[in-house]
């Protein structure tokens, strides 16, 4: 099994290296350094924390966008070029192909998290960066699985990108939405109760991206061990769920 998964994963990583993604990563690095030097010019005090916080948030958003677009574009290209059909015609189960693709995309995402963490060394104490990078890698792995699931289900670029980015924004804001919905907890009106339950239900099936890769870890208090364990646990469970859902959908498709 590993003899098949390995080459598929390697081919996926090679695609990431040889495509223009590296140019985009370079552009993101240049943009972040440009933003940092601008902030250095305008900040009167706390220049380094301001640079660290803003550049960290910018890099996180760019990493998420690059990962999602790479997975979606790559998979749609495989659909269009009939590579997927060629792969499924081989004497191995569909699950192996999908798992190989996931491993390759996840490896590329981890590499991306590491590369995009490097500029932070200029503004943030080095000991703060590993945990932030680890969390960013976890976030990107979840996004990889999410993109894979949506692109297999929807098979087109725009719907898949829109679905993943919509889920990402929802997952990052669900805590704030829950806080707002809690205001109706005291209400006995059934519509308020229903709204509260729906929000709680959505929160149960979403990853808590707002508690991952926090800027506060770079410029404020570093995370405690239970928080790190929580991030790792959430990544493992949610990735498993998304990969299982993607496997289910791929097996149902009439290819």
């Amino acid at each position, binding site marked *: 099994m590993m003899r098949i998964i390995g080459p598929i994963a390697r081919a996926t990583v090679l695609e990431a290296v040889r495509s223009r993604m590296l140019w985009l990563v370079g552009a993101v690095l240049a943009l972040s350094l440009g933003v940092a030097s601008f902030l250095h010019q305008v900040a009167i005090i706390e220049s380094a924390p301001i640079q660290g916080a803003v550049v960290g948030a910018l890099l996180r958003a760019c990493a998420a966008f690059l990962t999602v677009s790479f997975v979606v574009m790559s998979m749609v290209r495989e659909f269009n070029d009939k590579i997927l059909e060629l792969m499924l015609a081989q004497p191995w*189960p569909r*699950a192996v192909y999908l798992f190989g693709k996931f491993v390759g995309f996840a490896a590329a995402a981890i590499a991306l998290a590491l590369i995009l963490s490097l500029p932070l060394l200029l503004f943030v104490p080095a000991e703060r960066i590993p945990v932030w990078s680890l969390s960013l890698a976890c976030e990107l792995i979840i996004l990889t699985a999410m993109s894979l699931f949506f692109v297999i289900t929807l098979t087109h670029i725009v719907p898949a990108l829109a679905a993943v980015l919509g889920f990402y924004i929802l997952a990052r804001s669900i*805590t*704030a939405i*829950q*806080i*707002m919905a*809690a*205001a109706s*907890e*005291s209400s006995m009106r059934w519509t308020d109760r229903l709204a509260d339950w729906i929000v*709680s239900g959505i*929160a*149960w*099936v*979403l990853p*808590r991206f707002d508690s991952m890769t926090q800027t506060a870890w770079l410029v404020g208090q570093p995370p405690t061990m239970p928080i790190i364990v929580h991030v790792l*646990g*959430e990544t493992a*469970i*949610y990735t*498993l*769920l998304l990969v*299982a*859902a993607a*496997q*289910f959908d791929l*097996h*149902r*498709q*009439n290819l």
Partner: protein
Amino acid sequence: MRERPLSDVPRWVKALLVAAFALQLAFGALQPRPRAAAEDLGPPPSEGVLRLAAVGEPIALGKLLMLYIQAFDYQAGTRTPYRDLNYDHLEQWLDRVLELDPDGQYPLMSASRLYAEVPDSAKQRKMLEFVYREYLKDPNRRWPWLAQATVIAKHELKDLALAREYAVALQKHTTTPDAPPWVRQMEPFILEDMNELEAARILIGGLLASGQVTDQRDIMLLDRRLKRLEERIKAERQKGR
């Protein structure tokens, strides 16, 4: 593209999906529910930062912020909601929302109807003062909230001087025909409660003579009030002799 039947999906994939979903539900259910405690309401960001965060949608952000602020300390079973809020921060937040969405009525409604209802006169006064200050910026749209503030000042704070100040402002600055006549007629009634009978009589007489009051029922009410005032003044004078 037609889908293959469910039976084509390997059993282990189905089992994995169900198990992973159950695991995620259990993980989600075990997370503590996020709550906004009163003491968590810190100072707001500056208007510039909020406008930047609004990415060109300040009104939408203002309305969302109002819902966010409202979530603080509004908990089930709390007999006196909002009492633990830091009112300095609260006022700054309401101010920011009005800066983002000046036509929105929610911040002033909340200030005069929710946050001014706490059993703490210092906090009540802070909210009333906020409503008064903001009323002066747009009297014809914000008069309902200053009218409410006047009632609170008179009946809850029992501060007739403050109530009169607001009533005078309502009379002086509210010019829209949308506002009912009583909004501009509050001062004489407060003066009467302050035992400033002569001043109240002059004001009511002036109102009637000015022709500003056109509704027959309002004229009758004021007329009756004027007669009662004159009787009280007469009685006071006789007592004085």
